[in-house]
């Protein structure tokens, strides 16, 4: 992931990646920090991480995207290089109202990467194009 994150989140993710290791346990003070910054979204995101809801989807071309299985059972798409999620909360709270920085799916993606709890899936180039286009979510746009 090369998306530019707020320094503070980068610090926390770095700490999580450095301290978790095999145990996959996030230290209490880092959990506190996450909750401090993201409020209730942090808990929801950690829940998604616990349920292994984040999948890194790659194709032979090398293009990558993240799929997050939301708590409602709907699958959302998060981009690898910039903050974009196809969920309605991202459109509303992040884009429209600018009152949150990330949705829980993007946060869960960053946390899954930091804790090494991302699932992996390989698809064809054409299938990845379909995910990037997110055709099934067109009506929400």
């Amino acid at each position, binding site marked *: 992931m090369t998306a*530019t994150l707020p320094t*503070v989140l980068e610090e926390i993710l770095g700490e999580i990646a450095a301290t978790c290791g095999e145990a996959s346990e996030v230290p209490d003070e880092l959990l506190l920090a996450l909750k*401090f910054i993201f409020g209730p979204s942090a808990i929801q995101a950690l829940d998604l991480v616990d349920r292994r809801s984040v999948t890194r989807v790659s194709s032979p071309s090398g293009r990558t995207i993240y799929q997050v299985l939301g708590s409602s059972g709907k699958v959302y798409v998060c*981009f690898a290089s910039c*903050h974009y999620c196809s969920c309605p909360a991202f459109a509303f709270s992040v*884009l429209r109202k600018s009152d949150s920085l990330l949705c829980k799916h993007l946060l869960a993606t960053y946390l899954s990467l930091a804790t090494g709890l991302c699932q992996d899936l390989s698809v064809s180039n054409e299938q990845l194009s379909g995910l990037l*286009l997110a055709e099934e979510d067109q009506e929400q*746009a």
Partner: protein
Amino acid sequence: MEDTAPHYTPSLEKSRGIIAHWGAGLDKRWAPLASSLSELSLSQWNVFKREGLAQSNALIGRVSSAERGLRAGMEALQQLLSPGAGVGREGCATGEGTGLLLLGEPGSGKTALLFAAALVAAGEGRGPVLFVARRALQSLPPGWKAGAARDPLKLQKIHFLYPPSLRELLQLLSSMHERAAQPPSLLLLDGIDEYLAETSGAQACAHLAALLVDTAAHFSGCSGSGCGLLVTMRGPAEAEPEAASLQLTVLQRYLPTCLWLELEPPDLAAAWPQDSEQCFRARLSSGPGFPKQEWSLSFGHDGEMAISQVSCQASQHPSQKAEPSSPS
């Protein structure tokens, strides 16, 4: 937000204590956060309590990023237009976005600048240049014909693509990775506003902008030498419909570096060397209310471009700072 649980809002003192604890106990990298928190004013603290740390971090970051943004746009443009400099190479190394948004009224030279960038990138011996627009141009920008005629091989490296609708543009960007034999060195989109006019949704706008950034990032990863991204947009009018200003805000999330182009007033253009066919003034801004820097760009008959900074005090006489090589 569906969750109604209250935000975690400890007192300022307690927060500083927690952060000081992190700073001491975990890593030296916490120090910048601790010091920026200790500099919070009371009003910033209230924002902090209300909106959480993320918002106040953005608040603190805004002032310094405005100063950085002031230079970033022009540097990005100079990088795109300097042969051999390598488009976006530096940006890739730091993981920063390499995109640049050019804003301006019709006739302010956005397309001419895109062509200049296309010709420069095409002459660098790297991948092809993708020039995407809704329709083919009626006429070529000044200086471009001569520059292209001088080196027809350059022209062959510029691939023109004309998706006629937003949907087809999204399809083009989504599937670009499938068949790019050689990763492009530059991705240009002329007139993103023409596509955004089809929608009023913030999500659709973000989807398009994110696809552009993600596509350029993908090609940057492929080539190792970077793929630049340059997008033009018609500048917002005075009385702006709400939907369009929201779209600009959303775009700037993904393309935070932007340049405003203004056509040089005729009397100022007259002060330029006679062989310049056209001058553009680039007004660089990093947001409303922030100081702006002005730059003048001039295109000669051969497509050569000269850039000079217009100092604030002597803005009536940009020629004073123009290329020293001009005779007379």
